[in-house]
């Protein structure tokens, strides 16, 4: 618990009768990638929304670097270093890819009173944006309007925008969904490269990717944490296999059966 940069206790969220997330305790550590697995409707996206502040929690608390941020607004949480991407692409469709990242980078140096200067001449921000674009593999797509990018490229833009805000904690909601094999491979490399300086929470269905990058894995079912631990432990765990694959889970290894079609 000691050096956890982000930790939750009894974090819950109720929608009417449904407990979407039920008293989840999860920890994120700097330099570690914590993957969250689970069938659809397990409450993974709701969990991310609670951590990012997009959704207020019904019960429990979230501590970040020792402070309680349970009541903090989404923009305040982002400013103190919690960046997130979205499962459903949520970008500035009308702007160029570069402008998307530039706006993200600008949030760290907003300079709202400098209304006489041209934002494009503010090099630190523009450089950060170009660096993020390159990191996400969109270097030559800078001038394209976001709405004209392919679905996979838009997913890359999502990641580029989060990186552009130079966060300490990254909450990634199914970043690989919709990406081609090549783009997915590049993204896994990127995740490995950036894990050392960030604390990453990765929600993802792609088993190969998860087991390739995850330091810790948590499996969630019906809003509750079924089991959490090292990848090997999760892979071998009967409870996970039963819940995840249904009752007749054979002896087969979780990864081949579970890899996404």
């Amino acid at each position, binding site marked *: 618990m000691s050096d956890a940069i982000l930790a939750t206790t009894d974090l819950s969220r109720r929608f009417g009768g449904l407990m979407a997330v039920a008293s989840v305790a999860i920890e994120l550590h700097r330099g570690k990638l914590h993957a969250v697995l689970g069938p659809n409707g397990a409450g993974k996206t709701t969990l991310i929304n609670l951590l990012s502040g997009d959704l207020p929690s019904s019960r429990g608390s979230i501590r970040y670097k020792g402070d309680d941020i349970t009541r903090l607004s989404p*923009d305040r949480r982002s400013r103190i270093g919690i960046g997130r991407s979205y499962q459903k692409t949520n*970008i500035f469709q009308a702007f160029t890819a570069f402008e998307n990242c530039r706006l993200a980078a600008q949030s760290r140096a907003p300079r709202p009173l400098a209304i006489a200067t041209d934002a494009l001449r503010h090099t630190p921000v523009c450089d950060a944006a170009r660096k993020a674009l390159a990191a996400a593999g969109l270097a030559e797509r800078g001038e394209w309007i976001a709405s004209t990018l392919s679905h996979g490229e838009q997913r890359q833009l999502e990641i580029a925008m989060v990186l552009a805000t130079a966060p300490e904690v990254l909450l990634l909601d199914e970043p690989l969904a919709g990406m081609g094999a090549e783009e997915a491979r590049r993204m896994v490399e990127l995740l490995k490269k950036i894990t050392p300086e960030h604390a990453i929470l990765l929600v993802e269905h792609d088993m190969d990717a998860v087991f390739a990058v995850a330091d810790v894995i948590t499996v969630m079912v019906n809003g509750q944490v079924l089991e959490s631990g090292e990848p090997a432990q999760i892979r071998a765990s009967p409870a996970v296999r039963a819940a995840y694959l249904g009752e007749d889970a054979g002896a087969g290894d979780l990864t081949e059966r579970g890899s996404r079609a």
Partner: protein
Amino acid sequence: MKRSKIALLIALALLALFPLVGATFYTELVTKVMILAIFALSLDLLVGYTGLVSFGHAAYFGVGAYALALLAPKYEAANLWLTLGAAIGIAGLAALLVGMFVVRVKGIYFIMVTLAFAQMFYFVFHDTKFGRGSDGISMNFKPEATIGGVNLFDLGNPTHVYYLVLVALLAVFLFLRALLRSPFGRALQGIRSNEHRMRSLGYPVYRYKLASFAIAGALAGFAGYLSAMQFGFANPELLSWHQSGNVLLMLILGGIGSLYGAVIGAFAFVALQELYSYVTTHWQLLLGATIIALVIFLPGGLASVMGRFKRTLVGEPEDE
């Protein structure tokens, strides 16, 4: 890129030379249209660039006009610079105060709430002693524009007023163009495109929208001041919701989301009004039908105009 620069200069030259050619009536008419263009520009900052559709923007136009009328001393000329500064400040403050209420709501609520607040301002000037009642205020003396004793220009002379307003229009246009390229302006446009993502990227969206609302209010106050200065007259009808509707219409005519659109919209709207009232006394029927046709038959509705907005933003900023 070159050609649009030339077109801009031609239009500017045309406007600059107009008073020498046109008779006094037209000079004063074009002066009024330029004041309406400033008013439309101020609203475009809200509607076209921040995505806040205000249906009560005339309130701050009226506050600017009344600031001059109420501050002007009865038996001598007011100082232009002092009263102008006060008018812009008071209008901006009024927009800030109302903004605190209205910026918290979105979409249809925003439209209706801004309308209701504008009506509240209308009644303050129409009903109370402070507002001098329904017949409005007429000033005996036009403000003086003196710097160090030297009287720069005489506001009684329509040509001087024309050039003062032309300079004002240019100043507001360039100010907004610079503002929209600044980090603050870009953030506003981000809010218009995807407010939710801007918040999750760390932008205090409420404060940006409030600032935009206040700046737009201040600029509307500037236009209101000029309109009261032109004829030395302020009346509660300046704040009527028809004025708020007309300025929204100017944006639609000219094309939302482009500074040119606001200026062109103002000219097109007044030209339309003059043309129709010249044709028949029932000109409002024609104007109403035109509005309806515009909304329905404009290809792809406003999107086609919006499309132009997206592309202009994307191209070189100087494209504006």
